Every structure is written in structure tokens, then in C-alpha cells.
């Protein structure tokens, strides 16, 4: 359960593929409870990530995480930019003393919470990152668990982000950032040799 530049790149490419394939769906999820751009934001972001990794092969894991973070921070444009960006920046920092998935995701999860101020139950990507980072720490992660985390946001009332303006009306809709985060975890478990 350790990360290398190679399997990180494979994982991120798989994530990019899913985001690109599901671009319209992610933006659709963002329409009733947001501004309808999450798919476009993320697609722009992962494209920039791939271009960055293509343009300059990272020397090590830390450099790879940093390139990914910088591409997301500068290209996403919406709230998910600094949030995903912070997640990868924290992994970059952590990767200096550990390449363990569990350690890296714990750092990323903490970074997202610090950056956005959301906690579990606020109907954000934290509702995927927090439980799934914990699963990774306990040694396994399944697609069913990913689906459960993503789906748990449906009935929640948003406390952070644009959906929070809707109060109770935000209930009954999946959170788009939770969905895209779900793809990140699915891509992770689908990448051979990581878990």
C-alpha cells in the first residue's frame, strides 16, 4: 500500500478519464444545488494536470503531488480548486516522510477540512474523504463503501459551499464534489498495485 510516481500517474490518469467521461453528469449534479459548473471545473483541472505531467516528468512523488496540486489550483476556478489543490499539496508535504496511502490520505483529508472549514455531515466532499481515508487506514476499501459515502450526502442539508444557501432545500440531491471525490477513490482502488 505504497505510492510511486508510476502508480500515482496511473491513478491520476484513471481519475482524469472518469471526470472527463462524467463531466456533464457532475455539472448536472451541481445545477439544482450550485452553479452547474463542477464537471467543467474538474475537467479543466484534470486536463491541466495531465498536461503538466506530460510536459515535465516529476522527479519524485513529492514533485508529482505538487504539480498535480498546482495544476488544480490554477485551473479549476471553483471551490473544488483550492480544496483538491490543498489535498494534493498536503500529500506532497506528507510524502517527504511517508509514501503510505493511509498517511497520505489522512493528511489530505485534514487539509481539505482546514481549507474549507467543513466537517462530516455538511454535505461536501469531506463526507467522502473522511470515511474513506479512515477505511484506507484500516487497510481496505471497496466500491460499495465508496458508493455509500457518496450517497450519504443525498439526504444531508448543506452547511458549506453554494448549496448551503438553499438550507433544507439542498436535501434530496447528491453533492457534486462528493461524487467527483468518489471517482478519485474508485480510480485508486482500480489502479493495480496501489492497494
Amino acid at each position, binding site marked *: 500500500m505504497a505510492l510511486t510516481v508510476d502508480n500515482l500517474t496511473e491513478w491520476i490518469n484513471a481519475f482524469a478519464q472518469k471526470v472527463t467521461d462524467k463531466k456533464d453528469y457532475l455539472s448536472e449534479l451541481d445545477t439544482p444545488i*450550485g452553479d*452547474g*459548473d463542477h464537471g467543467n471545473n474538474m475537467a479543466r483541472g484534470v486536463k491541466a494536470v495531465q498536461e503538466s505531467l506530460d510536459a515535465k516528468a516529476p522527479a519524485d512523488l513529492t514533485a508529482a503531488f505538487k504539480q498535480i496540486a498546482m495544476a488544480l489550483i490554477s485551473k479549476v476556478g471553483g471551490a473544488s480548486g483550492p480544496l483538491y489543490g490543498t489535498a494534493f499539496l498536503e500529500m506532497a508535504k506528507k510524502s517527504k516522510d511517508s509514501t503510505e496511502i493511509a498517511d497520505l490520505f489522512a493528511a489530505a483529508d485534514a487539509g481539505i477540512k482546514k481549507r474549507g472549514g467543513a466537517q462530516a455531515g455538511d454535505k461536501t466532499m469531506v463526507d467522502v474523504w473522511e470515511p474513506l481515508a479512515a477505511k484506507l487506514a484500516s487497510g481496505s476499501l471497496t466500491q460499495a463503501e465508496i458508493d455509500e459515502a457518496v450517497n450519504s450526502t443525498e439526504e444531508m442539508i448543506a452547511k458549506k459551499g*453554494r448549496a448551503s*444557501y*438553499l*438550507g433544507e*432545500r439542498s436535501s434530496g440531491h447528491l453533492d457534486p464534489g462528493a461524487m467527483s471525490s468518489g471517482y478519485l477513490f474508485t480510480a485508486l482502488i482500480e489502479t493495480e498495485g496501489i492497494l
Partner: protein
Amino acid sequence: MTLGITIVSHVPDIAAGLPKLLTQVAADVPLTYAGGTDDGDIGTSMAKISQAFDDNAADEILAFYDLGSAKMNLEMAQEMSDKTIHLYDTALIEGAYTAASLLEAGVPLADVEEQLKPLKIK
């Protein structure tokens, strides 16, 4: 009874810019704006505000403004309008954004006004 939003700012760019933020979350809410004086300088114009009320496809309007003098012109335009105009002393951008989000979701006016209360700062 359809509900719309009218934005009034001293600055033409702000008045024209805010609807760009609102349409993202409220594509179906009628939005109009009035910015600057008749000559396009910094200030407000009762005539422009009246026009923004008239041009709004809704027959009941939630109006938001930046500074106090805009409110005075808004009230004059309100008195002259045939439409029902609600004027809110909330933060301009944040109040209008909240109202737009909620109207788009079909929230009734009374509930929208409840959500606007904590944003009253004038």
C-alpha cells in the same frame, strides 16, 4: 405571481456584473439592474431604476442596493411603480445571491425573507 430581482448599484460595472453571478444559480429568475447616473457616472438614477422595474418580466420584485442614496432613488421608483416592490437593507451581493438561489429553488417569498434577515446590515 412571478418573483424577480432588481439590482441597484452606484457603479455601472457592479450593477451589470452581479447578475452574471446570479444567473449561474438562478437561470429562471427574471433579473434586471440599474447602475450609475443617467450620464453613466458613479451614482444612481431614479429613471434607470424605474426602467429596470419595468423591464423585469416578473410582476413582484425583490430589490437590492449598495449605499443609502441608492435606497432613496429606489423608494421613489417604488412609489411610482405599478409592481409590488420589496426593498431589502441587506448586503447587496450576498443578499441578492441568497434570494436568487432560493427563488430558483421555488422557495416562497416569506421563507426567502426569513433567510435574508441575518444579512440585513443597513
